């Protein structure tokens, strides 16, 4: 049996190693020098879908919302073996809040065709669209499991997965179609860790056209403030100043001093 998966992928600000003030003023963010990256948990969700395809056959489709800024996440999906990609590009949707984006993504999923599994990452700390997975599942009327760590079994009309909860794990079974929101930190050597882009596919897919849909194509009337919430102000947060002191393991004197300071 083949399984059809749709993966929601996001390009997010790369907030590692931020330098300088991000809050330019109470009403503006200084995002000019920020770089972006493929949301790491979305990459884990993508890998889950690709492994299902490797094992069971079927298709994987990736859907993104918003014009590409620095990293074309859909092309990165093609480089990893995704069959089909589609992007929602619409200024009203992009200016909208998570609810507006969720409505657009739900419409795009319907246009692609309802999948057996809808997958996305949870997006643990960044503000951008971290409720997207839950909202899209609600809009499509799909049962969902959140904080999914791994799959146990898929078939016979259901999916069994293990999800993280406080102090442990929970094994849950959902009927297909279902939405899985993946939230897991993976070590490089983990069998669930995302694969790299394939050189062959990079050559093949470099210029492949990427389908773009606007609100009209999706038959959508956009309410840019569907949730009624908006960022009302920004404050720069005074950063805790830590000056990391590097100590080589062989430096007995430095180790001794460190222990003395810690004991003091």
């Amino acid at each position: 049996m083949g399984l059809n998966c749709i993966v929601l992928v996001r390009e997010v600000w790369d907030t590692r190693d931020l330098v300088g003030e991000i809050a330019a003023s109470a009403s503006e963010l200084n995002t000019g020098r920020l770089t972006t990256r493929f949301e790491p948990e979305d990459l884990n969700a993508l890998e889950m879908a690709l492994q299902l395809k490797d094992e069971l056959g079927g298709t994987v489709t990736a859907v993104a919302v918003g014009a590409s800024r620095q990293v074309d996440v859909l092309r990165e999906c093609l480089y990893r073996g995704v069959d089909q990609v589609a992007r929602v590009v619409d200024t009203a949707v992009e200016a909208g809040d998570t609810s507006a984006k969720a409505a657009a993504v739900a419409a795009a999923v319907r246009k692609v065709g309802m999948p057996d599994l809808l997958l996305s990452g949870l997006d643990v700390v960044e503000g951008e669209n971290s409720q997207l997975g839950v909202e899209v599942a609600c809009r499509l009327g799909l049962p969902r499991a959140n904080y999914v760590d791994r799959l146990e079994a898929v078939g016979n009309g259901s999916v069994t997965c293990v999800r993280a909860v406080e102090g442990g794990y929970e094994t849950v079974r959902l009927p297909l179609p279902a939405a899985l929101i993946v939230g897991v930190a993976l070590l490089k050597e983990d069998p669930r860790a995302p694969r790299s882009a394939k050189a062959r596919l990079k050559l093949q897919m470099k210029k492949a056209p990427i389908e773009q849909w606007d609100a009209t194509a999706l038959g959508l009337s956009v309410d840019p403030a569907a949730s009624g919430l908006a960022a009302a102000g920004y404050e720069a947060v005074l950063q805790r100043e830590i000056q990391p002191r590097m100590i080589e393991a062989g430096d007995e004197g430095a180790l001794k001093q460190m222990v003395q300071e810690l004991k003091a």
Partner: protein
Amino acid sequence: MSNDIWVYAEHNAEGLTDLSLQCLAKGRQLAAELGGNVTALLVGSQVEPLAEAAAAHGADRVLTAADARLEHFGPDAYQRVVAAAAKTAPPRGFLFPASTQGTDLASGVAQALGTGCVLDCQNVTVAADRLVGRRLEYDRNVLTSYSGPVDTLVVTVKDGIAAPAEPVAGATVETTNVEVVLDDADLVTQVLQRDVAARTVNLKEASIIVAAGAGVGSKENFSLVEELARTLGGEVGATRAAVDAGWTTLDRQIGQTGETVRPDLYVACGISGAVQHRVGMMDSKRIVALNNDPNAPIFRFSHYCVVGDLLEVIPKLIALWQA
């Protein structure tokens, strides 16, 4: 529109969770400013016995949604029950703990109520008669305030938002059972198994924690970490990877789905510093990281960064500490 604050009071085998008690305490502050009341909503199979604890920690009124079909958390069923209850008397603010359950549920309930949700609030304030959810973004560089023309603001709140209130002995409270209406479609998620550790240790109260990550490598090496903890008079903590490897128990896990700790001294052994772990320990007063990779992300937010093999470094530290 009422000026009431609702709190989703999450519970586990030990009773109301600490974060739920913090929500109740925060709810009290907000209700006092708004001139409203605090309602605690309890959902589960047998929740009536928890009503008293909710009252003792600040609830003026308790709503219980008790039904055998709600024994385990299922997003669809819980969402339907919670949203239906809130629709009968929409509160000004609806506080959920920022737990795995609260996070999933809050987004869904907000959607069902047609309102917005702010996740992971460090604080919730009242400004011009409206609630404002404030959350840290951009790797804690920016505190963003969210508000809007919404009747009901749904938020999840982070650990540390308010100290749980001292319980009031013998608090009596008006308890109302809400009607639970569920269809088969709401009950499609089956919980087959739960592996949740009983808590044998309170890491939150430890002033010294020595924690192990995947880089520790083996159960045998893990015992070295335990020895270091004993020497320092601290507790042993672990990352999810170290717990998954079977070196220690789940109740010692620190991070996103484990404990959030702020000890005086945190010694991270073989921990790379993935964000899921970092969020649980980054506010420790002093952080010592031991890692053989000089580029390990944890070195960016540690006070002392010891680069080298743990098997070499840990015995040295034990000897120096005892000297």
